[in-house]
């Protein structure tokens, strides 16, 4: 006999699985570029700034995810323009923006006395709180984002090999870089609700890193990263349900376990 509680639990899990798998598929190709182009700290910076987005969303009375996306896009555009200057090392700039934005977000949250925000939920994610709207947004929006990435895939791979060479060969390098940075910002915004601010980058980096040993072309690595990401989501949610652990960290633990396993397995070299 199926009780109401069982049915609700089932729907929670189906929602969580649908959202998590969609995110894993979308994040995979972007995660590859994050690994290839050493953008892990860039992803972290966007994630830290995302808390400011939560504040903007709550204070502005708009959808929180919308606020996060807006702030992530703004920060990515800011970083893209700063990169041209080069008077400071890029990781120094990222350090200033990342922690400045996180601190500002925390201070602003404390000042908003009237609004209660579940800080733990934003820091570590709450995949069991996603609704069908979120799932639809991840699959549809994510599909559009992967489509846009495919359009600049060729110049992006070329400039990952060598930026000067790509420019000489006529690729629109600056445009491709900006598109990648903005799309990664959107991926971070979408992933935040599921794994949280502190763990967002792991969903980009770890599946791609686990996929590296099994790929001989950039595209193979993106596909393998999608498989690894999906396995991490599935395994993490199962563990979360089985052992009653928080879902976001459980997914990341599963991803790390997969990475360790991939290092122990014979690769294609």
């Amino acid at each position, binding site marked *: 006999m199926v009780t109401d509680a069982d049915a609700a639990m089932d729907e929670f899990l189906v929602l969580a699985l649908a959202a998590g798998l969609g995110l894993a598929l979308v994040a995979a190709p972007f995660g590859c570029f994050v690994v290839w182009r050493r953008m892990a700290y860039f992803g972290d910076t966007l994630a830290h700034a995302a808390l400011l987005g939560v504040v903007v969303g709550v204070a502005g009375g708009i959808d929180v995810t919308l606020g996060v996306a807006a702030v992530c896009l703004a920060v990515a555009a800011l970083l893209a323009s700063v990169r041209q200057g080069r008077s400071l090392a890029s990781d120094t700039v990222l350090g200033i923006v990342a922690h400045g934005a996180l601190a500002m977000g925390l201070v602003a949250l404390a000042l908003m006395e009237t609004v209660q925000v579940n800080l733990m939920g934003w820091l570590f994610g709450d995949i069991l709180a996603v609704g069908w709207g979120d799932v639809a947004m991840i699959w549809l929006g994510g599909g559009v984002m992967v489509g846009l990435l495919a359009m600049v895939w060729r110049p992006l791979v070329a400039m*990952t090999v060598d930026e000067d060479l790509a420019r000489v060969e006529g690729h629109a390098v600056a445009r491709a870089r900006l598109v990648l940075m903005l799309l990664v910002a959107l991926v971070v915004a979408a992933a935040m609700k599921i794994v949280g601010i502190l763990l967002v980058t792991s969903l980009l980096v770890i599946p791609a890193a686990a996929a590296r040993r099994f790929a001989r072309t950039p595209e193979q690595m993106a596909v393998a990263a999608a498989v690894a990401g999906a396995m991490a989501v599935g395994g993490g949610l199962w563990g979360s349900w089985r052992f009653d652990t928080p879902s976001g960290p459980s997914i990341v633990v599963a991803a790390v376990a997969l990475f360790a396993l991939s290092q122990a397995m014979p690769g294609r070299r």
Partner: protein
Amino acid sequence: MALVALHEVSLAYGDQPVLVDVSLAVERGRILTVVGPNGAGKSSLLKVALGLVPADRGRVERGAAVVGYVPQRLTVERTLPLSVRRFLDMAVPGRVSPAALEAVLDRVRAGHVLARQVADLSGGELQRVMMARALLRRPDLLVLDEPVGGVDMVGQAELYDLIAGVAREQGAGVLMVSHDLHVVMAATDEVMCLNRHVCCAGHPESVSRHPEYLALFGPRVAESLAVYTHDHDHVHLADGTVDGHGHGRGCRHG
């Protein structure tokens, strides 16, 4: 119109001058080699010519439709899975036929590396593959930044022969930076001696006797070069006879 021409170009990084009033022109079928000590601005000159770095002053004109570029160094991240096949295929829009890939690798004597990962190549192999990639584009203009770095002695001579062949037979212009003074003097149409400004430029032999050139490279290097260029202003035919010996200004016999 020249394939690439610089008119009194100046460039500075901060308040450090890198290029001062440099002019040059590369014509179809001609090889211009830039020599000079470390920090003379040779690579920067190529980047300005390619349009990768904007000049602070002066004019850059590029008439070449297709440019092949071999940078001084290429570092492919080990995290990026990339075969030589794919690396070559990226050089031109669309797909390159396997036969064309084999053929171009044969030209640079690297026929065995097609299935290897770029990150696993040795320095000399990578240099040859980069040259193959530039040739695959069927360039009007080849821009080469020390194209034989890391290549063994025999391979160096072969690659310079190949470069000369591309200029002579395909009519491409070549703008090249090189440290191999001996080979440069023998295989180039024009030499420019650069030390932020143009010390001297012209026919290899006249440059090798120029006082500024001697001051830059020292009399020992310069002397060995003078002998070398004298020995090689003629062509040895396959039967051992000598052909095309023009008595140039540096010729001290006959």
